[in-house]
């Protein structure tokens, strides 16, 4: 049994944690939250210098050609630091979409620049309230032109290109289209978010030029594959955040006295923190399995990804809520950092599909892995 990260991967974790403690301090997160700074001003550049954007990009596209284990390690640390930058949209989604469905030409054009950090991409799926499905899509792609509005789109203001999900006749009912964000007909308006440390916008495509990414009418299937891969990476961010929230709650409870003793000595608080630890541990172990399935392209990926994602949503949501609760009134003030996790956990819970969607996917994946034929 060798169900553990390697020495090198653990070293990378230490290095990443050290780097982010400097480059992405709570002070920086707060500045971004207050609108005094954007995470993409300096942080994104420093991260690119570390080479993290290039982690899983093959060497022939000037990437590092490392495994997804390394990217999972980085994702966990990004989550722990509540990094206010465009890493997830560009690396877990746009880069992955190119790796998954890009033509040789598209890959050659974008991947080397993604690896160096010279360009960033994003992924645009949602249009309105409720679940996105091929039927719900209103964005169209005809004669190489995209028409429609996507919102919220992460990091649209800094993205050089977007991979967008559009309606298609035939096939699975949708296509993926790559649009250069500088093309004529693309405009974006910032939208206020529950987590203002992550920039999002409403993006209008008014006859903007685009090109298919993957086959026409295969967009829905590709998106499911893409989201399975991204789910593992987002789950690692969530686990990192959940552990940070637990640590924050613990430190406060140890130092805060009520009725003449640390509140950490009361069972009501101890049990709350113990249950955080339980959920975080379940999520982490499921994320290990997700990392393994992603890194080895295992056929179990759909089940492993959904399991990691569901567990990670539960863990981070619980930890971030109970972190504030443990802090009492101070946790509810703007001055305290508890809000970082409360905001980020909610954003991460919906950004690639809500808990309900992933619970649904989990059961479907379980049935297909365990022989749905038993069903009837």
């Amino acid at each position, binding site marked *: *049994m060798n169900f553990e990260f390697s020495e090198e991967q653990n070293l990378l974790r230490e290095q990443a944690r050290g780097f982010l403690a400097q480059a992405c301090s709570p002070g920086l997160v707060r500045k971004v939250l207050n609108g005094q700074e954007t995470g993409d001003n300096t942080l994104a550049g420093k991260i690119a210098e570390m080479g993290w954007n290039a982690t899983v990009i093959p060497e022939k596209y000037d990437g590092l050609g490392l495994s997804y284990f390394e990217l999972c390690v980085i994702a966990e640390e990004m989550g722990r630091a509540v990094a206010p930058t465009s890493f997830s949209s560009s690396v877990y989604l746009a880069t992955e979409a190119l790796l998954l469905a890009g033509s040789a030409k598209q890959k050659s054009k974008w991947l080397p620049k993604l690896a160096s950090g010279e360009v960033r991409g994003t992924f645009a799926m949602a249009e309105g309230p409720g679940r996105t499905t091929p039927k719900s899509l209103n964005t169209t792609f005809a004669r190489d032109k995209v028409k429609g509005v996507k919102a919220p789109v992460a990091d649209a203001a800094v993205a050089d290109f977007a991979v967008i999900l559009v309606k298609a006749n035939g096939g699975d009912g949708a296509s993926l289209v790559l649009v250069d964000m500088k093309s004529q007909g693309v405009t974006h308006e910032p939208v206020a978010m529950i987590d203002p440390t992550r920039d999002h916008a409403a993006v209008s495509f008014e006859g903007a030029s685009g090109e298919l990414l993957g086959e026409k009418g295969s967009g829905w299937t590709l998106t499911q594959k893409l989201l399975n891969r991204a789910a593992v990476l987002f789950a690692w961010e969530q686990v990192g955040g959940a552990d940070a929230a637990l640590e924050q709650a613990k430190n406060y409870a140890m130092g805060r006295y009520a009725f003449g003793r640390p509140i950490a*000595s009361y069972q009501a608080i101890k049990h709350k923190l113990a249950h955080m630890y339980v959920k975080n541990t379940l999520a982490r172990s499921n994320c290990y399995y997700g990392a393994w399935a992603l890194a080895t392209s295992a056929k179990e990926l759909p089940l492993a990804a959904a399991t990691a994602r569901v567990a990670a949503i539960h863990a981070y949501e619980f930890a971030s809520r109970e972190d504030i609760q443990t802090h009492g009134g101070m946790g509810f003030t703007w001055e305290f950092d508890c809000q970082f996790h409360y905001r980020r956990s909610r954003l991460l819970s919906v950004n690639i599909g809500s808990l309900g969607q992933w619970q649904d996917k989990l059961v479907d994946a379980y*049935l297909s892995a365990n022989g749905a034929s038993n069903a009837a």
Partner: protein
Amino acid sequence: MDFEDTKEEAKFRSEVRAWLKANAPTKKELKGLGEIEASKLWQKRKYDAGWACIRWPKEYGGRGGTAIEQVIWNQEEVKLATPGGVFAIGQGMAAPTMMTYATEDQKRRYLPKLASGEEIWCQLFSEPAGGSDLAALRTKAEKVGDEWVINGQKIWTSGAHFSDYAILVTRSDPNVPKHQGLTYFFLSMKSPGVTVKPIKQISGGAHFNEVYFSDVRIPDSQRLGAVGQGWQVALTTLMNERASIGAGGGGVGVTQAMKLAQKLEIDGRPALEDRAIRAKLADWYVQESGLKYTGYRSMTALSRGAIPGPENSIGKLVGAPKNQEMAAFCIDLLEEHGAMWDPNVSEAAGLYQLAYMSSPGLRIAGGTDEIMANIIAERVLGLPQDMRADKGLPFNKVPTGVN
């Protein structure tokens, strides 16, 4: 990261498989045997072939193997549903305590018979007034010459009715604070003055007992640890208890619940198509899977010769309440039919009803949910202990209630 055995582990696993395949008891062999006879037959066979108690030293009846070998053995044996639960307390808790505190002669006398299954042990710890607060126990031990005279009562003693020996914690001095006045022994359950009375549980079974002591005499040579050091000795036992009481087998798992939800219908469609049903099953799957891979992480540590981290301490706290919730969920799926508990009529011969009625016990035995949460809070997260009203008080001055 992978799930592969190392070369040595793979070799060991294939030996284990081959031996189990050739030697596991057949249904025919076990036919007509009670649980204890069946367990003894199988344990003796393992012992004779050198497969009993893998990690114990050979001179005490074990195999002299490693922790990872024990895990591999368990993984392979569990697939065959062999009998043997009756030895869990003796081998899992009494034996490690004996190994640490008994004399060499005692170890050579008792441990091999524990390994071979010839002698079964139980654990006399909990009392009517000392459950979660175990150190509040009152069973009195008085030194008379070279012997100790024991009077009092224990409760929740699993398997006392078929045990040959027992480990016992007593109060030898009520005039000092509670943790300081305890003394630990082992004794024969056949000792004059020991009376065992089964306790009927809400599930209908009777696995536990009350055990009464009336002037029971124990030679001082059967004391484990120094007089007044009983608490330290008991901690050795308890550390092993928590390792040996797992997520609680015999309950309802996701596999059964998924099948049930596929079979039963809501409004003419399989219940499993219902979003609310799916959400619950997905959450329980996540818990099962999380425990499984947490176990793999611990196993990896063992495989590397390291000590596993604290992550395994979550097993019982997750598994026991989950079992109760899932049993209730399955009964709900069955609707009114689920209220019937008759093996001839009930779905799955009454599995769900039995699981529901047994599950409160799993949430209590070996440390309640609340105690398990305290352990995680204090030992894993390093939070302070609760303030205790009895701290520093002589035991006989500690306030007591009516329950």
